C-alpha cells in the first residue's frame, strides 16, 4: 500500500535564507513517525511546507498519492492534514469552545462537529469542564490539550504535532505523550516533531533525523534508540 504521506526531495527557504535542502521521508497509515533534530535543523520548516504555510522551492508532498504541495493551507486541512503549531497558538481571549469551533471550520468538519466535539471531550474531559472558560486562563498542560483537541476537530487523517512538550513539566509531557498514543490507537496517523528525543522514540514506530536541512538518519524507533551516534548527540550517553 502507498504511504499516507510522502515527502520527496523538498527544498525550502525564507527569503534568501535556505532552510531545507533535500528532505524525503514517508509516513504509513497508522504509524507514529517522529522527526528529530536540534534547534534550527528544519523540523518546523518541514511541517510548514507540508501544511501549506510555506511554499517549497522544489520537491513534492503527496497525501494518499495526490500531490498537495501547491494547495493553499485551508485546502490541505480539508484533505486531511492538520498541524498543531509550536507554542500552541490558541486564541487566549476566546473561550475553549470557540477555539474548538475554529478547529471545525471547514464545511466537511462542520457537519460532524457535534460528534467530533463529544469525541474530543471524551479524550480531554478537562476541556469539557472548562469549555466556557477563556483559553488564556488554562494551565500550560490544558492549553496543549486544547491545541491538540482543536486540531482534532477537523477529523484529520494525519495529525502533525510540533514540539508538544514545549514548556511543560515532565509529568505533563508524559500525559501529553500518553494522549498522543491514545489518539493514534483510535486511527489517527501521527507525525511528531520533538526535541525530547528519548520520549519521542519510545512513543514512535519510526524516526528520521534532520540536520541542517537534510535527513541524515532514519530507522525504526528501536534502531535509532540503539544508534551510538544518536545516543551521543541527542541522548547524552
Amino acid at each position, binding site marked *: 500500500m502507498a504511504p499516507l504521506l510522502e515527502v520527496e526531495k523538498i527544498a525550502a527557504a525564507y527569503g534568501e535564507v535556505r532552510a531545507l535542502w533535500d528532505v524525503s521521508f514517508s509516513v504509513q497509515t497508522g504509524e507514529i513517525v517522529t522527526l528529530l533534530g536540534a534547534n534550527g535543523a528544519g523540523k518546523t520548516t518541514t511541517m510548514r511546507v507540508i*501544511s501549506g*504555510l510555506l511554499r517549497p522551492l522544489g520537491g513534492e508532498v503527496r497525501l494518499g498519492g495526490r500531490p498537495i504541495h501547491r494547495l*493553499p*493551507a*485551508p485546502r490541505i*486541512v*480539508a484533505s486531511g492534514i*492538520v*498541524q498543531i*503549531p509550536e507554542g500552541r*497558538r*490558541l*486564541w487566549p*481571549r*476566546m*473561550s475553549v*469552545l*470557540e477555539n474548538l*469551533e*475554529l*478547529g471545525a*471550520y*471547514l464545511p466537511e*468538519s462542520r457537519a460532524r*462537529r*457535534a*460528534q467530533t*466535539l*463529544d469525541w474530543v*471531550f471524551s479524550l480531554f474531559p478537562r476541556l*469539557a469542564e472548562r*469549555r*466556557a*472558560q*477563556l483559553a488564556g*486562563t488554562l494551565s500550560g498542560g490544558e492549553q496543549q490539550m486544547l491545541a491538540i483537541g*482543536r*486540531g482534532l476537530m*477537523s477529523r484529520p487523517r494525519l495529525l502533525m504535532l510540533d514540539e508538544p512538550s514545549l514548556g511543560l513539566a515532565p509529568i505533563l509531557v508524559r500525559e501529553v505523550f500518553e494522549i498522543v498514543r491514545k489518539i493514534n490507537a483510535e486511527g489517527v496517523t501521527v507525525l511528531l516533531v520533538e526535541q525530547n528525543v528519548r520520549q519521542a522514540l519510545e512513543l514512535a514506530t519510526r524516526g528520521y533525523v534532520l540536520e541542517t536541512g537534510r535527513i541524515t538518519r532514519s530507522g525504526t524507533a528501536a534502531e535509532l534508540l540503539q544508534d551510538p551516534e544518536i545516543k551521543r548527540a541527542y541522548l547524552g550517553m
Partner: protein
Amino acid sequence: MRALSARLPWARGAPWAPRASALAALALGILLALVPAVAPRDITLLNLGFFTFLYVAQGLAWNVLGGYAGYVSFGYAAFFGLGAYTTALLWLAGWPPLATYPVAGIVAAAFSLIVGVPTLRLVGPYFSIATIGVGEAMRVLMLNLDRITGGASGLNLPTAVPSKTWFYTTSLLFAAVAFAVAAWVRGSRVGLGLMALRMDLEAAESLGVRTALFKNVAHSLGAFLVGACGGLYATFLQYVHPDTVFSFTESISLVLIALIGGLGTVWGPVLGAVVFYAVQDYLQTSYPTFHLLVYGVLLILILLFEPKGLAGLAERAWRRMRGAPARLAPAGPSGAEPAAPGRGGAG
C-alpha cells in the same frame, strides 16, 4: 453533552447580550422613526438625523473589516464616491433615486474586490498605506475623467427631490440595515473567523479558515453599504464633486467613528457616529477647525484609557452598576468576560 453540542454557542460576553442588544436597537429605531411625525417641520433636526444615521451606517460598515478583522482601511471614500457617482449618473439617465442605491452598492462592492484581492494579502500598516494610495488615486482619476464626472466643476443633479422626512427615514433605514448586518456578522461563523484571523492569521489558516475569502467578503460587504450611502448622499445634496465624495476626510471620518466608538464592537460605531457628527455640527459653524482638535484629544484619551472606545466605557459603567453581584458568581475567571452561567450548566 449532546445538548451542549447541539447549541454550540457563539456567545461572546454574556449570553443575554445579543438579544438585549437587538431589542435595544429595535426600540431606539422605532423611537427615532417617530421623530418626523412629532416634528415634521424641524428641518435642522431632520438634517442632523440624516447625516448622523448616514455616518452610523458607514461606521458600522467600516467596522466589519476594520474592527472585526483588524484591517484598518483609509480608502473607503472610494466606495462612497463610486456609489455617489453611480446614483448621480443613473438618476440623470432617468432612474428613480431609490432604485439606484442597490446598484451604487454593487458597483462599490465590485470595486472593493478589484482592490481587495491584491491589497488584503498585505498585513498591518502595509495594507493601510495601500488603501490611502487607492483612495487618493480614485479621487485624482475622477477629477480628470471630466466627461463622465464633470471633473472639477462636478455634476448638478435633478432638483426634484423627496422630502426631508423621506431622507431622514431612508437614512435611518440604512443605519438599521447596517446594524443588523454588523450584529449578524459578529455573531456568525464568519465573524468568529474574522476575529480569529485578526488575533492570529497563521493559526487561523492552518486550521482551515479561508482567511483570504473572509477578508474579501467583509471588505465587499462594507463597500456595498458605504456605496449605497454615497448614493443616498448624492440624492440629498443634488450635486456631486470628486473632491467631496472621494475626499480623504470622508475616509478618515469612518476610521475615527469606529475608533472613538469602539473597534470591533457592534454599538461602537453607533455611539461614535453620534459623537462625531454632533461635535462636527456644533463646532464647525462657529469654529471651523476646532472640531479636529476635539477629535484629536478624544482619540488620545481613548487610545490611552479605553481601547474599546465609548462602547467599552459604557460596558464598564454598566458592569460597575451591577458589578458587585456579578463578582460573586463563581464561574467568572477574571471578570474580563463573564463565563455564561446558563450555558455552563447546559452539559
